[in-house]
Structures are given as C-alpha cells and as structure tokens.
C-alpha cells in the first residue's frame, strides 16, 4: 500500500525554486520556535509557567505548513501549534501567558481559532470555516492541525467526510510524530499510512517528510492551491518526530526506545537539515546563523518580560467572555466571589 503513498522530499534533491528569502525565513522561524520551546521548558522548571507542550523536532512541519498560507486563511490549531500560530502572527508573549495559566488557550485577533486541547474535536470547525469561506464567496481556506493520535477520534472521520461531501476548501494537516503520549503509531491504527485514510472520503491524501521544511511548504502550497481552485480538501500526513516530552509533565523514557530517539535526533533534525542545505547552496554562513540565533534569544527575552510584567488577574476575568450577553446571575455570582476574595 505504501508505494501508492510516496513521501515527498525536497532537501535531498537539487536546488529548490522557493525564493531564497522565503527559504531563509523558514530557517529563522524554525530556530525561533526551537529556542522558544527550550526557553519555555526552562521557565517551567523554574516554576514560572505551568505545563507546556513543546514542539521540539517538529519545527519543519509547524513552520513550513504555516508559511504556505495567507493571513486571511483560517488556522485551526491543537495545543502544540504555537509554532504555526507564530508564523500566522501570534505574539510569543501570548504563548507565555497561556502557559502561565492566564489564558485558556492561544487566542488572538488573527484568523485562527484558539488552540484546542480536546483531541481532534476541532476538525469539524475547520470544515465549517471552510464552508463559510465558500458560501461567502472568498477563496480563503481553513487548515486544521492535529496529531497521529487524533486520527482515531470520531470527529476526524466526521470532519473529513463532511469536507468531502461539500468539497470544502480545507486542509487536514496531520503531524505524525510517531507517538500519542505513550501510544506508538502502530497501536493507534492498523492502516499502513495515515494518508491513505483519505480514500475513505474520496479526497486527496499526501505524505511528506515532515522534517523537510521545503517539502512541507510545497505540499501544503499545492493543497492550498487545489482548495482555492474549488477542488476540495486534502489530508496531509507529515512524517516527523517529537524529540521532547509530550508535555513538561511527561517522561518519555518510560515508554520510548532510546535508539529511536537518538536516530531522529542525530540524523534527521529539521533545523540541522535545513541549515546544511542553506549552507551548501550558499544561502547561509556561520555568522548569519549566529546572528539568527542571537536575534531569536533577544526576541524571546522581550516576549517573556512582556508577559511577566502584567498585573495579577482579577476574579471578574473568568466571567468576562463566557457570553456576549451574560445572564443576570453572573453579576451575583461574581460579586459573591469578589467579596470572599476581599475578605480572605
């Protein structure tokens, strides 16, 4: 079966026709994301933020996919997609605030839904956003992010089926990072590939080397073009690997073979691969690289400081946004809590 589902690679081939400045930008954003995740893990260890889900190792998938979109497209993310959202325009300070327990999700004024913690149940929203774009006569699309584990949920199925029936302009971007917490991909489903699940819905399915940022950029670009032409949805399986823990609360050494991890870390790191490629094609020097890394650190430092500078939250905040038109009960409930707080 897998010969019918070839894995697209670009970095291993010749020169890419992606403009040099875009290639460079992809590399910079991967470094920014990696640096941010490392910093966040540190902040968590210091007790300055709570549980955090790093995307270490998945930078090519996150960054390459999001760069292939327009700002007017909808991003529908899972909890691990601060990388894609950052590319779409999300300030990193929002990510810090989220991890500080000050926002329930990565929310923003962008064309993006807030990050969704329940697995795969956000996929139908992407279909709805795509249907809305269709009915409103735009050529915008929606792209949902989720993991290999997410393919098992019923909502994955319902979303892809609806998308097929309505030929909705939606991309289902599945980061197959090998694991759903401790459950390996092979125990998640008996299908040989995840891309082949597209067959069930009469829609397009693609596999891509998810640690090859140019390949990811290309495959999403193609799916987006198809969607905008009215040719319907695409399921993309991006083959990558989570180099870190599931979240800072997880210990992957309990369940994951050390050799597997070593292999991915040493020979398939997406940043090293892109860095090597850029250098080989004369698009990056060691000094550039140094400067990019320093700029990332500086930017992250500023974002963390911005987040930490905010005043403590007030009780009213949890009532504020639940409804646009809140019921009378809210005022009473809020007052009672405020009174207890002021007494306590």
């Amino acid at each position, binding site marked *: 079966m897998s010969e019918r589902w070839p894995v697209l690679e670009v970095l291993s081939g010749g020169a890419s026709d992606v403009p040099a400045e875009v290639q460079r930008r992809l590399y910079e954003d991967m470094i920014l994301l990696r640096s941010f995740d490392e910093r966040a893990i540190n902040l968590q260890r210091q007790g300055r933020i709570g549980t955090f889900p790093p995307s270490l190792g998945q930078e090519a998938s996150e960054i390459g996919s999001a760069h292939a979109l327009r700002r007017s497209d*909808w991003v*529908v993310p899972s909890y691990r997609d601060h990388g894609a959202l950052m590319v779409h325009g999300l300030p990193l300070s929002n990510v810090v605030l989220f991890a500080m327990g000050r*926002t*329930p*999700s990565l*929310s*923003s*004024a962008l064309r993006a*839904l*807030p990050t*969704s913690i*329940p697995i795969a*149940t*956000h*996929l*139908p*929203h*992407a*279909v*709805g*956003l*795509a*249907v*809305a*774009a269709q*009915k*409103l006569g735009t050529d915008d699309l*929606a792209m949902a992010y989720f993991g290999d584990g997410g393919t098992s949920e*019923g*909502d994955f199925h*319902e*979303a892809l*089926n*609806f998308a097929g*029936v309505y030929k909705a302009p939606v991309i289902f971007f599945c980061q197959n990072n090998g694991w759903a917490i401790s459950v390996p991909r092979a125990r998640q489903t008996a299908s040989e590939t995840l891309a082949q699940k597209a067959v069930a819905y009469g829609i397009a399915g693609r596999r891509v080397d998810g640690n090859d940022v140019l390949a990811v950029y290309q495959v999403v670009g193609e799916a987006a073009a198809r969607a905008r032409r009215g040719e319907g949805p695409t399921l993309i399986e991006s083959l990558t690997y989570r180099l870190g823990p599931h979240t800072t609360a997880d210990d992957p050494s309990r369940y994951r073979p050390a050799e597997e991890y070593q292999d991915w870390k040493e020979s398939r790191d997406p940043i090293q691969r892109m860095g090597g490629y850029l250098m080989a094609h004369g698009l990056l020097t060691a000094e550039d690289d140094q400067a990019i890394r320093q700029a990332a650190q500086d930017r992250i430092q500023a974002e963390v400081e911005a987040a930490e500078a905010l005043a403590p939250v007030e009780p009213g905040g*949890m009532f*504020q*946004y*639940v*409804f*646009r*038109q809140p*019921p*009378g*009960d809210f005022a009473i409930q809020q007052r009672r809590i405020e009174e207890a707080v002021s007494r306590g």
Partner: protein
Amino acid sequence: MAERNMIGAINLTLDQLLAEDARVMVFGEDVGKNGGVFRATEHLQERHGEGRVFDTPLAESGILGMAIGMAVGGLKPIAEIQFMGFLYPGLDQLMSHAGRLAARSQGQVNVPLVVRVPFGGGIRAPEQHADSIEALLVHTPGLKVVVPSTPYDAKGLLTAALDDPDPVVVMEPIRLYRMGRQEVPDGRYTVPLGSARVARAGRSLTVITWGNMVAVALDAAQALAAQGEADIEVLDLRSLYPLDREAIGESVNKTGRAVVLHEAPMTGGLGGEVVAAIQETAFWSLEAPVERVTGPDVPYPPYAWEDFYLPNRERLVEAVRRTLKD
C-alpha cells in the same frame, strides 16, 4: 396575522429569517427535499436554494462542529438535530466547544449558533425518540436554552435565539407541534431570552414547568378551579438558561407553595435547580415543602408504558393537594 400551529410558526419563522439575512443557513439530516421529519423545514430548500438549506451526512457531532465553524466564520447557522435522543453523539461539540469558544478565545471569537431540537414524549414513538435532556444543557457553561410551549413563543424565541450573539439551543416539544393553534403575527418579533411567562395567574400555589408539561399544568389548574379547590398559578419558564429566578421568587412569594413539573427523570433533573431557586428566593414564604412531579429515574419506556411514565393531570393534582394540605 393568522392562526398557526407550532410547526407552522416555526416553518414561517425559518422562512422569514432565511429571507431577511443571506448569512442564515438551515441544515441537518433530511431538512432539504424532505422538509424535515416533522416538516419544520418544508419548502425552504425550494424557496432559498440548496446553498442555504441543505442535508448533511448522518453525524451529529459533524453537524454541530461544522455549525460552530460556520458561526465563527461569519454565517448564522441554524442546525437541526432530528430528535433530542440523537443529540448524545453531538453533545461533545456543545460541551467542549460551543459553550467554551468565547471564553477560550477571551472574546476574540463568538458562536452565534442556533440548534433546534425536537424533544419530549407523548407521541408513541419508538425508543430514544422522546428524551428530554434540558438538565444536561443547562448545566453546560456558555449555552443558552429555551423551550416554547405555544406557537407564539416558538416564533419569538427562535427569532431571539438567532439575534442572540451566543449559542442557543431551542428545544421544541414534539407533542405540541400540531396541538392547537394560536394567532401568530406575520411580522418579526422576539420573546426575550431569560423571561418566564405566567401562563395562568393564581393565588394558592405555583406550578413551575416548561414545554409539554405546560398543557398538563393548565389542565390540572382548570380542573382544580372548576371544583373550587384551588386557584393555581402556572409559570411557564420558557427560558431554562438564563433562568428567570426573579419570576420564580415573585410567584412563590405570592402563593407560598409550589410544585415543579417536568417529564425528564427526577434525579438530577432541572426540577432540583428550580427547588433550589425557590429555596434561595422564597424560603421565608414557603408554607409547605416543594414537591416535584416528574418522570421516574428510568429510560423513557416503550410506548405501552408512556402514559405511566409521563406526569399527567392526576399525578399533578395529587401533588397539589398534598402541598395544599400542609
């Protein structure tokens, strides 16, 4: 203005809402050509086209999840779930998402979604075609829940639900769809969310209820009045969330006695909330314990048992008598 039954009022309302705003979309299982299993959407596809009124695949979570996305994306979706007993596979979308997206996004996103769900018993339907799960929805933060018991309110509440910027579930009592007609204005009007209706004014005791059971309450009230036994006030809640706690308090403070009536099973039913609301707003006026007359704690039974399951006039009258005796 014409006399209409409830299903006619709903069909008219949908037709008008579709006509007045191109963003309104009506969809669900069998709502298109078939016009809905209860005919609530009859002729709407013909009139407004397949782009506006359309069938979905058979998947409730998909329907509601897509509807959420459509609402966020700038449309005004009105989704139909065929029967409340088939809302279960779609509950997650209401509970994990519709009710949370506004808070989750800190107000960046809101979900102006309307879900219509026929519910309740009394029509001798097969299993799982008669469930009433208002208590589950009312306990879901971020949702609003309304339930008309007259054609007039059906139109006014549905219009108000569409106007409301938050997600609203409109529960439609199946048994009342074709039971009785009423003058329903042709023009647009709303019945505000959160306001109960005194369906019958009275002085001796308040029966608090909604949906199908309003008819049972009015019937019992009439019987008791005819026999000169009692002068019952009937409060039709109409809006279950927000709950009109003021109207509850006002009525019970006046009458001093109350019975809560609903068809869902007793334990964990919304009756408990109403009893607590009475406790909180009218304790010092209470002259007798508040009784609940409800369905028993069993799955809605096959129809040979339906008349035993559903609260009826006899059971309500007995409860009223007990409550008046104390």
